[in-house]
C-alpha cells in the first residue's frame, strides 16, 4: 500500500485562539476552524511523517478508536482540507513545509 504524506500549505496563516485552531486562507481569505481530529492531523502534517503514522501516534493513542475507522476518518478530513487549500497531499514525502 502506498504511503500518504500530508503537509501544511504555505498559503495559509494558522493561529490558536482560545483553544481553537483557526486557519486563514490567502487564496480566498476564508477562515476555517478545525475540529479536534483535523487539528491533530494539521499539527502532525510535517510533510515527512506518513498519514498512517500521524493517525497512530496522535489519534489512536489518545482516543479509544478503531484504527481502520480512525484512518478512514482522517482520509476524509485530509480530502476536505486539501480541497480548501489548507493541506497538500502526496504519495512521496513533501520536503517544503512550514
Amino acid at each position: 500500500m502506498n504511503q500518504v504524506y500530508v503537509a501544511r500549505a504555505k498559503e495559509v496563516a494558522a493561529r490558536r485562539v482560545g483553544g481553537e485552531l483557526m486557519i486563514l486562507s490567502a487564496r480566498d481569505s476564508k477562515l476555517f476552524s478545525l475540529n479536534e481530529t483535523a487539528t491533530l492531523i494539521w499539527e502532525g502534517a510535517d510533510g515527512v511523517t506518513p498519514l498512517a503514522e500521524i493517525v497512530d501516534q496522535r489519534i489512536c493513542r489518545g482516543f479509544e478508536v478503531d484504527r481502520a475507522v480512525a484512518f478512514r476518518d482522517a482520509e476524509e478530513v485530509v480530502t476536505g482540507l486539501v480541497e480548501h487549500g489548507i493541506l497538500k497531499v502526496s504519495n512521496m514525502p513533501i520536503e517544503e513545509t512550514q
Partner: protein
Amino acid sequence: MHPGSATPQEIAGMVVGRMMGAEIAHDVVVEIGGLPISVRTTSPEFLQMLVDRYSGFLNPEAEPVFELEVEIAAAEMLPGAIDPDADLSVRFEGGRWVLERGDFHAELDPALRRGHIRQTASPYAIDAAFRILHSLLLAKEGGILVHAASAVRNGRAFLFAGVSGAGKTTITRLAPPDVTRLTDEISYLRREGDGYVAYGTPFAGELGQPGENVRAPLAALYLLAQGPVNRIDSVTDADATRALLESVLFFAHDSELVARMFDSAYELVQRVPIQRLTFVPDARIWEVIQ
C-alpha cells in the same frame, strides 16, 4: 469643518504646483491616520475634487510617506473597457503592487514609496486606491482598516462593527452632541504602545459625510446587532476573532500579508475589549456607551 467646496485662495494654500512636461502638475498631501500621501495630478478638475473631498485631511506641511501620480484617462482606456464587472484585483508582481478594477489601474512600488494610477475622473477610484494603499501600509505595523463606524466620547474611541444593515450608520446618526464621529464606514486603527488608536477617516458610508480628523485611544469594539433591548454581552476570543476578520478590509491574496493581518486581528482581540452590543435603534443606546 468640511466645506462643500474650497475657494481658489484656499486651494492655493494646500497645493504645490510644478511643471510636468508642458503641463503644470499639482501636488496635494492627504493625511489619513497620520500617514501623509501626496497625490500629483495635471487635471485642475481632479485637483478641485481632491481638495473638496478630503478637505479636512489635507496637510501641505507633512512629509509624504508615499507619492501617487494620477493620470486621468478615458473609460475605454481602463480595465473596465474590457470587463466592466471585473472585481477588484490586488496582486504583487515584480516588486510592485498591482491594483486593478473597472475604473482604475494602479502600480505601487513599496520600495520607492511611489505609485502611478491611471483612472477615470471618478472620486471612487482614488478613494478605493487610498483604502488599499493604507491597508498595505498599515499591515506592516500591525494596524488595520475595519468595516466599522467609530466615534470618540470622553476622550476614548469606540468602534461599531457589523455587516451591512447591522446598524453602523444608525448608531452614528443617534449619537448625542458630545460624541465626535470618526467615520460611519471605515475605521482606522494603529498600534500605539500597548493599545490601539482610532483615527477619523474621510471614507463615508450611507451618511455621506466624512469623519472628523481626530484621534483617540480605542476603548472598546462592539459587534453590532439590533434587538428588542439594549444589552452588552461578552464573546469568546475565537468568536471575536472570527467577527473581526469578517470586518477587516483586506485586499491582497498574499500569504505574508494574510499572516500579518491574522496577527493584527489576534493582537487586537487580546488588547481591546470586544463585546456584542445588541441595541434598539433609538438614542438611549448611547447611555451605555461612555
